[in-house]
């Protein structure tokens, strides 16, 4: 089963993302910040990473940079969940190695469409 890592410091967002992805038949691993995200990514071989940008301890950009150094995650799609005001963050995220972004707020359907697009 396709495994997705969802990283967000907001419990409600995590819950929403996980529920949406699981309903669509994906396997989901959660993390509440970048540090946990990296450790979850090491433990589980995930096919896709979704990550919030602003998080305590380690933000999404630093986490992306970290993940790209792991051989398992060199080419794994990493999508940043960013707000429309975070234009700089998009570039910063891309420079760190992110594949793309999903603009918040998004509806469950939009999330699934984007994910399907990335997973092909």
């Amino acid at each position: 089963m396709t495994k997705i890592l969802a990283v967000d410091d907001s419990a409600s967002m995590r819950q929403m993302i996980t529920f949406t992805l699981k309903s669509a038949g994906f396997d989901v691993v959660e993390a509440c910040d970048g540090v946990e995200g990296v450790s979850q990514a090491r433990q589980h071989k995930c096919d896709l990473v979704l990550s919030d940008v602003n998080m305590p301890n380690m933000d999404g950009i630093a986490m992306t940079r970290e993940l790209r150094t792991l051989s398992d995650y060199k080419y794994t799609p990493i999508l940043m969940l960013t707000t429309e005001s975070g234009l700089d963050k998009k570039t910063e995220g891309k420079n760190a190695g992110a594949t793309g972004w999903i603009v918040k707020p998004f509806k469950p359907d939009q999330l699934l469409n984007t994910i399907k697009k990335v997973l092909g």
Partner: protein
Amino acid sequence: MTIELSQFFQVFFEESFEGLDVMESGLMSLGPANVDNEIINSIFRAAHSIKGGSATFGFASVAEFTHVLETLLDEIRSETRVMTPEMVDLLLESVDCLRELLEGLQAEVPVDSARADGLRQKFEAILDISADAVVSETGEVEPVAIGWQIKMVGGEDILRTGNEPIRMFTQLSEMGELTITTDFSRLPSFSALTLDSCYLSWQLTLMADGITRADVDEVFEWVVDECEITIEPIMDESVPVAAEQVAAPEASESVQEVAPVGAAECAVPAGLAALQTQKKAEPGSIRVDIDKIDTLINMVGELVITQSMLGQIGADFTFDKVSKLQEGLQDLERNVQVLHESVMQVRMLPISFTFNRFPRMVRDLSRQLNKKIDLVVKGEQTELDKTVMEKIGDPLVHLLRNSLDHGIETPAERVKAGKPETGVVSLNAFHQGGNIIIQINDDGAGLPKEKILAKARKNGIIGPGVVLSDEQINDLIFQPGFSTAEVVSDVSGRGVGMDVVRRNVQELGGHVSVKSIEGVGSTFSISLPLTLAILDGQLVRVGNQVYIFPLVSIVESLSVDMKQVSTVAGACDLLRLREEYIPIIPLYDAFGIEPDSRNLEKSLIVVVESENAKVGLVVDELQAQQQVVIKSLETNYQSVEGISGATILGDGTVSLILDIGGIVIIGQTTAPMQIKAA
């Protein structure tokens, strides 16, 4: 597939209220000399999460309001703007406003948006943006293309960010008929080749009806900065101009709009009054530390082991196994006790949940009162039962307000009295025995004893000739309707409430007392049981009835020497205990039971205390001490004076739990006021 977003609301509200608390305490800790980046960051993150969540879950009013807040915080965070005290005030007020909005949404009642609008204008004034700067994208008339000619020169790095060109091509091929020509001209010699670099370029022709530029752009959205991409429309010359306009609205539709104004949510001005009356019952969820759950699971495991051991003994029981049986039962007892304690732990929360709102309150009130006051909080990690915590909030607010208003003097008065200009109010929580003690201490003026005494005489609360100890005088402030404040202030009112505070605390099975020295300060102490559900009890027998005394209220038990007892005409007997006289209440009279003996010398007296007042209760026998589970008498029968509840004993009989506070009052009404022995 549709997903019902409302199922995530509860978590969203919980985390948003937590976020608001983080913002509030962060803002409070920002002083002019203390602009810590980490604090600003955490405030920003909290606002950012609330904004993101509210936009996602469709609470546009909150999302919009948080947006301006976040913008300001972001500027402060990136140091393009300096935080001023005015901004702190504005942000604090916004936290209140957001809390109000969220509470309204949670309770599903309309909330007046006027406050939010007013605050937003202030933010916009600071940020120098006009309110109607948000321009909705009007559908720019776009020519209708029958296809698109796309040239993509792959950036070398795109594979390293997980962007596979083939995915984009697949997407395009789903829109219409796609032809691809690949250009290999940039491919280096084999030795210079890096495996994960992209050297190819493509010429793509997409023939499709009704596919707009935006649709095509979206496919390349993530790589547009790294790749060289040119998109040209293929026009159908035969289509007349008029048709273009028909297609236009579609183009604007595909542009993702910023969350629209949720007019319906906040249109009706109803305000807080409606909120308070209609507020839904607390959902009653609790967050529990995972360690506590683990302890519980461990204990259940132990119980299962003990149970199977006992089961084995019971299966073929012979009398030589009695010692093993006893051992097993002891294990069982120990396990049940630990399990009991662990279950109770689940309901325990650190008192910081209640204390957290006080720094803000002190800050606001001291401004309002023109006083300088520092709040010192200690022991905020002390844990307390959730129900007790919820109910102790209001009495604490009242006591704190009282200390700020009546306790701490104005700076001028303080300087005159030789004290530092800034007063100190400290809030302290700690465990003592089976109780939690919360103390509110101020270094203010102390209680004015003469005034209190004069007032009490005037109101007829005490007779003219009665001499009271300092303690008793201070205690008068808890009498109904008692006040000495010369001017009614809107901060703590005129003495309304000290009696209510005492009543509220007593309803929780606790008591409140005050110690005060004039000119030095006052300390209010609230003592509360750790939980409302269990009680350490002392079983006592009177005749054929067994009653339970709360262990905490027992001072001592003694057998009586008649020389210590004096009878007062028309009232009850008094026991001289060291330098005090205390009223004796025979429980058999109070409850109409036939005792073993009416001779005091053959009975026992249990001295109990409540609110610093003692009475001696006459019983026949002291039995075991044990923890009992309190069952409410009120819900199952009706409230009875002097009884706080009931419990079921090990042998299945029901036993009544005495309300010592009530018994003491009965004792005081039948006895003259306690007088210190000469």
